[in-house]
């Protein structure tokens, strides 16, 4: 899976930055129980990987979801953040990550409804993706 490529695409985007999302508030899943108390934040949740086309030597496809959280009474900023993430990821192709994996392609798989996270005490929505990636060949 191409964790580094996805993270770098999101953390380096100026539109996301203008929406309050950057290096200090993009987290891998389960990384913190203490996210920002006033700012929006984003979790990247990587799920299972399965072989593409049923072949064990094919590039793997990994389910991934982005969970955007915000405080207050509106989902507007959450929607803007998730829509911008979708634009970035769907446009991404063959992005080499610093972890040695290459992101080949990202397919959007849908969006959740409006949710409440009673753990973080936030409003939240999430978008699901399938990420195709492969290990970079040894130099």
């Amino acid at each position: 899976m191409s964790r580094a490529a996805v993270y770098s695409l999101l953390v380096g985007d100026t539109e996301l930055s203008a929406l309050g999302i950057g290096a200090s508030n993009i987290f891998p899943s389960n990384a913190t129980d203490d996210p920002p108390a006033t700012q929006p934040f984003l979790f990247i949740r990587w799920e299972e990987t399965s072989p593409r086309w049923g072949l064990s030597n094919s590039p793997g496809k990994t389910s991934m979801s982005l969970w955007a959280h915000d405080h207050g009474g509106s989902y507007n900023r959450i929607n803007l953040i998730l829509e911008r993430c979708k634009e970035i990821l769907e446009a991404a192709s063959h992005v080499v990550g610093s972890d040695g994996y290459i992101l080949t392609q990202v397919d959007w798989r849908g969006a959740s409804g409006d949710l409440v996270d009673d753990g973080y005490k936030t409003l939240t929505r999430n978008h699901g993706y399938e990420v195709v990636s492969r290990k970079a060949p040894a130099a």
Partner: protein
Amino acid sequence: MAGRQVGFHWKSDTLRPGVKGFPDRMNRAIIAATEYGATRGEAYMKREARWRDQTGNARNGLFTATEHTPRRHRIIHAHSVPYGIWLEVRWSGRYQIIVPALRQTGQDVMRVLSRLVGGLK
């Protein structure tokens, strides 16, 4: 000179009965695949749920139901405990199991259906 006639006769018609019975066999195949996927899906949920059991109610309460109508076959994965929704969404889905199970079940059903449809005659 007398003309020579060449022709053939159908001894049996296997095509039309085969085509006529196809929807029924297809429907039975889908039901079989759906039931198989549902059984595997429930086992997957109970095995893979990522929370640490306290009473066991949440894990034991995970269940699967199927519905079959002439035009629709449905698999439902669900919690029985009232706080199941919070397991799904709390802390960005840290303990979610329904959505991963749906993905797994979908793949299982499609894999079985591919084999079954390929074997229909």
